[in-house]
């Protein structure tokens, strides 16, 4: 896959163009874009962002638009494992790798974002939006208007965040980011493997990855969540296409955990019933969540 970043300063937009090669899949859209303007974009972070954005479509060979430095080449190749991907444009000469001091939490609209934000203080909340007209960049909030999320490699808590990580990498230098907080709690084995490889890649471009909720037990997770009624605005803002938080499985998950924590059986029954209905209606839960629903809020892993 050959990639190219095209900047349009007049429209304040950035397009990632790509050309699939012999073994690559064709990505689902004509190109990937973000609204906004980047002042600084490090070559290695750009290559890592492209690799993550097109992660599930690359096979055989990856040619990032401006190549990459030797320090990032190994982790980039490893990212694709068990695929064997050749990397072109590797520059052996030493080059600056930017550093940052700020911590961004990636906002995916789930209850885990709330818990992760309470578990780990962050400087910036970073979010991708498919429908926002323009990108909003402020000192505490970055909402990026983009179609990146459509390139998500599949189901799963980490997979859903991969496009956000790619976008955060592109903005990282301008926003002074040095650390990303991922709101992930339970991953399957292949996502855990991916998290390891991903952390290695980001470390090579001076970005640390934290997952403060990963593997935490039910009690810890429950204690990180506030009263559900205080989250209605959060869920309304985070889910642009939903009429009411009552239609969101995440909202009912918080209610389930809250009911369990406060010991109110009626609320527990209601939340369990609603979540079971979500499951029957095709909502996909992680295995831990599914077990929790089936066991009426009892942590099967505890």
């Amino acid at each position, binding site marked *: 896959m050959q990639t190219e970043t095209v900047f349009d300063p*007049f*429209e304040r937009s950035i397009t990632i163009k790509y050309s*699939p090669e*012999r*073994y*690559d*899949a*064709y*990505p*689902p*859209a*004509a*190109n*990937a*874009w973000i*609204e906004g303007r980047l002042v600084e974009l490090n070559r290695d972070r750009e290559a890592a962002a492209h690799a993550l954005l097109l992660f*599930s*479509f*690359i*096979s*055989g060979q990856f040619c990032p638009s401006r190549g990459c430095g030797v320090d990032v080449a190994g982790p980039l190749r490893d990212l694709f494992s*068990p*695929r*064997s991907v050749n990397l072109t444009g590797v520059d052996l000469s030493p080059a600056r790798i930017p550093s940052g001091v700020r911590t961004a939490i990636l906002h995916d609209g789930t209850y885990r974002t709330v818990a992760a934000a309470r578990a780990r203080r962050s400087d910036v909340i970073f979010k991708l939006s*498919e*429908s926002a*007209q*323009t990108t909003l960049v402020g000192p505490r909030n970055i909402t990026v*208007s983009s*179609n990146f*999320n*459509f390139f*998500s490699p*599949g189901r799963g808590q980490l997979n859903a965040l991969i496009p956000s990580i790619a976008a955060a990498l592109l903005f990282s230098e301008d926003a002074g980011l040095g650390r990303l907080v991922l709101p992930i709690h339970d991953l399957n084995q*292949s996502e855990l*493997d991916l998290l390891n490889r991903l952390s290695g890649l980001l470390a090579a471009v001076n970005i640390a990855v934290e997952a403060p909720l990963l593997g935490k037990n039910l009690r810890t997770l429950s204690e990180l969540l506030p009263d559900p009624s205080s989250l209605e605005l959060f869920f309304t803002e985070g889910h*642009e*296409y*939903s*009429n009411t938080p009552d*239609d969101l499985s995440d909202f009912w998950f918080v209610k389930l955990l809250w009911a369990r924590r406060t010991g109110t059986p009626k609320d527990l029954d209601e939340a369990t019933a609603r979540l079971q209905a979500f499951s029957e*209606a*095709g*909502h996909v839960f992680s295995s831990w969540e599914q077990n929790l629903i089936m066991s009426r809020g009892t942590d099967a892993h505890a």
Partner: protein
Amino acid sequence: MPPLSVVIGLRNWGLDRLEVALRSHRASDTADLEIVISDYGSSNCDDVYKITQKFGCKYVYSKADVWSRSAALNAGIKEAASHNILTTDADIIFTPKSHDILIKNLRRMPDSVQIIQCRDLPEGFGSASLSNFDWSQLFKVSSIRPRWGMGGSATFTKALFARLHGFDERMTVWGGEDNDFVQRARRSGAILNWVEDPEARIYHIWHTPDSRGASPAETKIVENNKKLLDEDFSVVRNLSRSFRRPHSFVPTVSIVIATKNRPVLLQECVRSCLEQTFQDFEIIVVDDGSDEALRPRLDNFNDGRLRVIQLEHSRGIAFARNHATRLAHGEYIAIQDDEDLMLPQRLEHQLGSIAHDFAGAYGGSITFNDQSGTLIPNPGWKEFDRPSTMFGRIPAHGTLLIRRRALEHYLYNETFQTNSSFHLLNRIARGGIRLVHCGHYVILQRLRPHDHAASDSLARNCTSAISKSMARAAVSTNLEQQYRKAARANPKMRIAASEVITASRHLPPHLLSERVKLEFRTPLTAAGERMDVLRSLLANCHPINIDFSKGPQSGIKAVTIACDSSKERDEIISTLSGIAEIQHVNSFVLPRAHVDTSQIEAYFEGVAVGSGDYMNVGDDIEGLLQTVGKHCSRCFLATVGESEYRLGLPQLEEPVKALVHAKIGRFLTSNRHISEA
């Protein structure tokens, strides 16, 4: 469910090699492998069957005269129970860890085709010498086969198989079908991964080379397969075939219908869906809180593909559609409105038009008035892109067929009471998702007078305005101007008017009327008793199209008459056979609202206005037809009053038209009319 189904297609195959290949699969480290042997017409099928039973395989036999590896594999996969499929040949052996590695890779990369590079065993390593497998020795003696084919195996999910709808069965014998499958997989978003794990190896058992391509006929087949591979960029194939089985069916398409309080229309709609020429679909009906239970009305269809989901309370059409998307299993979603009718080839046309990296297709719609039956064709805009959607040139939403993945990401906005589809299409276009016009009309769109309440209309306008302003606000005024120009340059699709006429035959029966065309052996002269018969038919509300013949035997060559029943048709035939010998009778149906059959095609071409003249004339049809017959090839007559008829003339060249008008002036009873209806 087995973790993997190994599917092997064969015909008149060496049983010794088959036995060795099966032994290698059964020696796999992966327990519970399912092996499906798809025998495509072997003459020694009894012997093949015995071997398959020895190794605990599922045996599928297809009667066939010509070997087709594609068809054999498709028949085998249809019977496979696992969601993971490994297709291979009966002369390939696998190392014990291969299956497990393939399964793990597929779990990590579900959207992929996994290929293990084949190694060829040399002469002396045929089936006879492979009584046991010394893998270390086989590796040493074998040679690697270059990557120009698929190396004798391909592993993928059943979902991918459903998305591509199988190996292309136009490719007969063998050669090219694997490559073609992989290229289509890539276009649909799946990678090709060459497994490089040293524990996963496959070997080709040595045998004397086959004679493929030796004869002229075989050379032609090989060339044909190559041509398909090189020149056909479509994704979904075998559209007239079905790979549906009750126990392991992954639908290619989910037809989703959101409905509320329209049980009778929904029945018609579902019936039209079930009559599709492409049959590998499921139908999901989401009932958005109807007053009356819908299920009993749909139970009569007794079709396992139909799922009815009842929402407890009405939540709006956007919610119902998002709900349906979450429940859908098909790789593509076809949006269908509950009051519309699918034309029989809708899915076939749309799936067949998806090529390259297009995520879906749309088509033209034909609006029909549910009371009068008048038809208005809407061919739709040729291109789907951001400029066009921004300026309102969008596809008819009810004609959309799109990858499920797209609708899982781009949800309908449930906060919009109405017209969320317009907003959705704008966002999809902005997202860079590519859709293609399939080049055909695909639905009959029902128009019911007084359909939308005023409040609905207000909400529609309001949400449209929001969508438009959101789309335009995202770009600079300069770019907006460029987009405006680009949108204006997007033409309407050209679809043959004959499609409208064909499509009209699928209108609800109450909007159709039968026409019978009678050709006379000898042309009738417009005189005497014969005209009385025509008068009588006209008096009984039967509009008539008349064809004239020229030359020495001039007169009425044929008449086409509308009739309401077969009994009436028989009466008309009987009456007319009393006045002349009938040479040929042809019956067909056309929309009741369009009575002049001669003008119908021109009307749907959009050139009808002004092309034909309609005028009211008196009751002297003898004189009228004698005059008209001299200059026109045909005309139309219908009763409009007690002693008045309506005459329709075809498009004529200007001098002829002036002459005819001058000659028939004496028959006119009122001013000339121009429009048909």
